[in-house]
């Protein structure tokens, strides 16, 4: 479990994170959402220790990470895996060498054993046979999957993903989302994801923290978000008419008034019969 307590961070006097607190639990996908410049990435970097917060603390299973120094901090960091927005793969290394890098650095296993582990995680992210390829030879989705394989190769307790779907097509985004969710549940990892992607919010958001201008504006889960009356949140999430319709139908679905299949039919086919007259919309 990760606890964020009253985190504040500013750069050159400009407040970027203002008194944000949250609790992120094991075995679930914890999403930080918000528009560009809302402070999501800064918050995540404060959580992993890439930035030192001006005030507040980050607790990993009750241990204050912000106040840790030296070996203790390094020990916690070894339990963290991170998937970066741009994948952050080492250009001069092949897929296999990239994934093996943490094993080479922190284990004394034989090459055979390390290779087996690399193949195991590459299989887990559906990248069998890509071992000898260089990052420049991979598509955006493949790079993300290699980065995910590298992030989980040491069996981390905490997984951080900074905009895992940026630059990916909707189908590949879905694959990455499901992969993260499966891995989170399978290994009981505390996963924290920064995202703009509304599919991700609805698909995997066990806990959602909505940031607005550096402050925590709303928190809840992917069921509660549909019924939220928070105007800023609704403007951000359901920005288009299509998404508004989707929200309305998901609300009816959640209330058990229509089936998921019927919902999809109505959304995708404009000529489908209207479900309920507009004046009756909740």
């Amino acid at each position, binding site marked *: 479990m990760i606890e964020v307590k009253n985190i504040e961070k500013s750069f050159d006097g400009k407040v970027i994170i203002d008194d944000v607190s949250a609790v992120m639990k094991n075995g679930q996908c914890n999403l930080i959402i918000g528009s560009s410049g809302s402070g999501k990435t800064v918050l995540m970097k404060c959580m*992993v*220790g*890439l930035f030192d917060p001006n005030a507040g603390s980050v607790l990993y299973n009750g241990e204050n990470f912000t106040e840790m120094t030296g070996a203790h901090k*390094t*020990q916690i*960091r*070894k339990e*963290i*895996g*991170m998937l*970066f*927005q*741009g994948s*952050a*793969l*080492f*250009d001069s290394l092949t897929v296999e060498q990239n994934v093996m*890098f*943490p094993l*080479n*650095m*922190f284990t004394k296993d034989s090459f055979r054993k390390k290779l087996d582990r690399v193949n195991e995680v590459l299989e887990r992210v559906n990248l069998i046979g890509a071992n000898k390829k260089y990052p420049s030879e991979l598509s955006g989705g493949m790079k993300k999957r290699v980065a995910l394989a590298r992030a989980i190769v040491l069996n981390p307790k905490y997984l*951080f993903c900074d905009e895992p779907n940026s630059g990916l097509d909707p189908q590949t985004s879905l694959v990455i989302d499901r992969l993260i969710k499966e891995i989170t549940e399978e290994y009981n990892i505390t996963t924290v994801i920064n995202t703009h992607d509304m599919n991700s919010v609805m698909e995997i958001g066990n806990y959602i923290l909505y940031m607005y201008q550096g402050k925590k504006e709303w928190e809840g889960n992917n069921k509660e978000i549909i019924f939220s009356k928070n105007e800023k949140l609704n403007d951000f999430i359901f920005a288009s008419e299509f998404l508004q319709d989707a929200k309305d139908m998901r609300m009816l679905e959640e209330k058990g008034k229509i089936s998921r299949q019927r919902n999809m039919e109505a959304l995708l086919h404009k000529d489908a019969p209207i479900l309920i007259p507009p004046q009756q919309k909740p």
Partner: protein
Amino acid sequence: MTIFNDIGRYLLMIKGMFSKPENGKMYWKELIRQCTEIGFGSLGIVAIISVFIGAVSTIQTAYQLVSPLIPASTIAQIVRDTVILEFAPTLVCIVLAGVAGSRIASELGNMRVSEQIDALEIMGINTKTYLILPKIIAALLMIPLLVVLAMALGIWGGRLAGIASGIISGSIYDKGLLEFFVPFNVIFALIKAYVFAFIISSIPAFYGYYVKGGALEIGRASTKAVVVSCILILFADYILSALLLPT
């Protein structure tokens, strides 16, 4: 104020490099890789420059020595001392600041911008120790060797040009090389090489490691690293000459 801020961050970076490696084998591999890049990667340009500098020194020295009272072997002495004292260490290191220095700055800059350094930090690796220290050690190991090679090639280039242009015969040149030879000159050149090697590796590492922004900033950092390195090399050259050479 920026300059004091930069000096402070530079010193903190140097201090931060000295920590226990997470895995000695990986650090050793990185050191060998850097030795190859800095040493063998610069071998060609150093060889070409050294030979031509020696050759030009011979011709220009002969052009200026017009008196028949001065023996031809003096040309070899002047070329030898000029190459050992100044051309091999200083000129070669200025060229290396461009070749190896810009490579170090752009490599680290690219790693910073593409979040590879952050990825290493998250893994619990001290990036200053893993990325910067091997570069500095490799430079301290390889650049003095390149300077010694440059001395030999410069003197040989001078001999070659002297013979080819008919200024001086090979035997007189060789005789001149042995006359009034001061072994301290080589030691002095090596002291300079070590100081310059530290500048060539640590200054670009500083500018690359702390780069902010994108591709444009990497280019700027690389250029700034080369310019500052060259200025510091010339400044250190003056200080070392004033301190160590008896006048």
